[in-house]
């Protein structure tokens, strides 16, 4: 290695790989993966989210799952949690909807109003 800049470049790249283990504040997408969610296609929804994030080379988003939250009717449900903002739950998220939510909400910060599950 001949320059410090080269090291810095490798460091930035490699950090994307380990960021998942750091904790801290970052955007989180939670997919409901209870039996109801899986039956309604949550597995495919999760794959679509993963694929969309990879396609856009987004590294600082955490994708995680949760169990049934009691709204089985609305499954697959995904929740987008962004630091400093209220969390938003989407219902009946198909693969296409999931891709759209990543593009609109996660990337551009625009909540996709029509698919949001209203909360009291």
């Amino acid at each position, binding site marked *: *290695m*001949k*320059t*410090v800049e080269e*090291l810095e470049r*490798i*460091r930035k*790249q*490699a*950090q*994307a*790989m*380990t960021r*998942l*283990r*750091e*904790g801290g504040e970052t955007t*989180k997408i*939670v*997919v409901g*993966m*209870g*039996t109801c969610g*899986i039956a309604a296609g949550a*597995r495919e929804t*999760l*794959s679509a989210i*993963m694929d969309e*994030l*990879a396609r856009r*080379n*987004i*590294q600082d988003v*955490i*994708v*995680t*799952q*949760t*169990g049934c939250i009691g709204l089985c009717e609305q499954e697959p449900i995904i929740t987008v949690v962004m630091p400093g903002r209220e969390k938003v739950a989407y219902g009946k998220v198909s693969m296409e909807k999931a891709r759209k939510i990543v593009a609109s909400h996660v990337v551009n910060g625009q909540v996709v109003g029509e698919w949001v599950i209203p909360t009291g």
Partner: protein
Amino acid sequence: MQFYRSHVLVCGGTPCVLEGCRAVRDALTGELKRLGLDEEIRVIETGCLGPCALGPVIVVYPEGTLYEKVTVSDVPQIVEEHLLKGRIVRSLTGEGRLRGIVSYEEPAYLETQERIVLRNCGIIDPSSIEEYIASDGYRALAKCLTEMEPCDVIEVVKQSGLVGRGGAAFPTGLKWGFTANADADEKFIICNADEGEPGTFKDRLVLEGDPHSILEAMAIAGYAVGARRGFVYIRGEYGLSIHRINQGIQQAKAMGLLGEDIFGSGFSFDVEVRKGAGAYVCGEETALIESMEGGRGEPRFKPPYPGTHGFLGKPTVVNNVETLANIPPIILNGADWYRGFGTLRCPGTKVFTMTGDINSKGLIEVPMGITLRKIIYEIGGGIPEGRKFKMAQTGGTSGGCLPSEMLDVPMDYFTLPEMGSALGSGALLIMDDSHCIVDIAESFMRFFARESCGKCVPCREGTARLHDIVKNLAQGNGTYEDLRVLKDLSHAMQKTALCGLGQSAPIPIMTMLKYFGDEFEAHIKDRLCPTGTCRL
């Protein structure tokens, strides 16, 4: 780059390997493949996570869930419930006691810990140089080579107050200074990884868990003192350490972080591994050098010291693994930052390996000056089965034995010697009240009698006599005269033995006589053991 939604860290430290973590890892990758999750979940074998008694240990991120004592049959449940459905398997979780554990409250186990040496252990994949670079790896070397003069580097290390962590507590900056000032055509850096102190396994776990931190520190030391070659002297039994260091050397060379003209600075540095054959005395630096040169592992007469006359008669810096692991963060963050940890006289942290009668056996790193009570009861979880604390041996077999009255003594390199003990390499052997002190003394002395290299008379004869006398006492044939001889002999050995082995072999006996004298007397006078557990 592949994007993963979850990382599963499988502790691959030797203690977990012995508990079968490899089988767990294979089951995990198999199960993930079966469910088609292998594209989105990454399995990583890391270095030691710390709670060695709970192995095999795995941690699932991003949740940071710690699973303890995982067996192959637990794997399908963890994969299906946690990794597929996102439901943490509570029946297998620990209490969230490690760094980065986000889903559980963090009790004292971690709050009292301060991880500088172990900053990457159990967090990164030790077989990946990229992951080391991601956590600021090789930035300290870059800083030294591009922004600092060698004398500045030595000055920072001096100012940090770092002292040798192998046991002798010699100021590291001063040591480097001697070698830097010595005039010679060639100089060497040796990393002493001949960790022979019974009950100590910190160096092994650092080498296994974060090999690049040692290589980076050696290159920094080389730059500071003007050496172009370094050696890691690792005991031959440490197979995984040797493998990881060799792998690290290859990776660093491939990236040009070792080798010729590093960072275009004109500085070149290479590292090789030398395997030791397992003699206890070879941890002593001159015996280590003797062994590297192909001679018998026996200490040399000092002075001259290795700093000016070391390997092949050339100026040589010999530093312990843990000492070196402190160097990169000190360079990056500065001496004042380092002085913010520990005590005024003894800054920084210390890695301890806890063994014996304690609930949480394993590897911890705490600020210097912490009390034994805090380590045992807050971090270690206390003594098992509700028994009473009897004694703690600090610093390995050649360290002193401290009774319960000493539980509040600050643990550092200056206070413990004042109590007749030593901090040493950081082995902590905890014993409850079911152990007979004379029995313990006998086993310690047997160790030294066997490990004495025989070069000097005080140690060769002394360790054998100490063992004979204590053995006699343990069998109920001792006299009061024996106790006097033990003290005299110990005194003579401390004053006259050639190296640390003979000088410190009597330390356990001296402290035992001081704090547990009545138990020895009971073995003589009543021919009875107060604990009722020894062979008497």
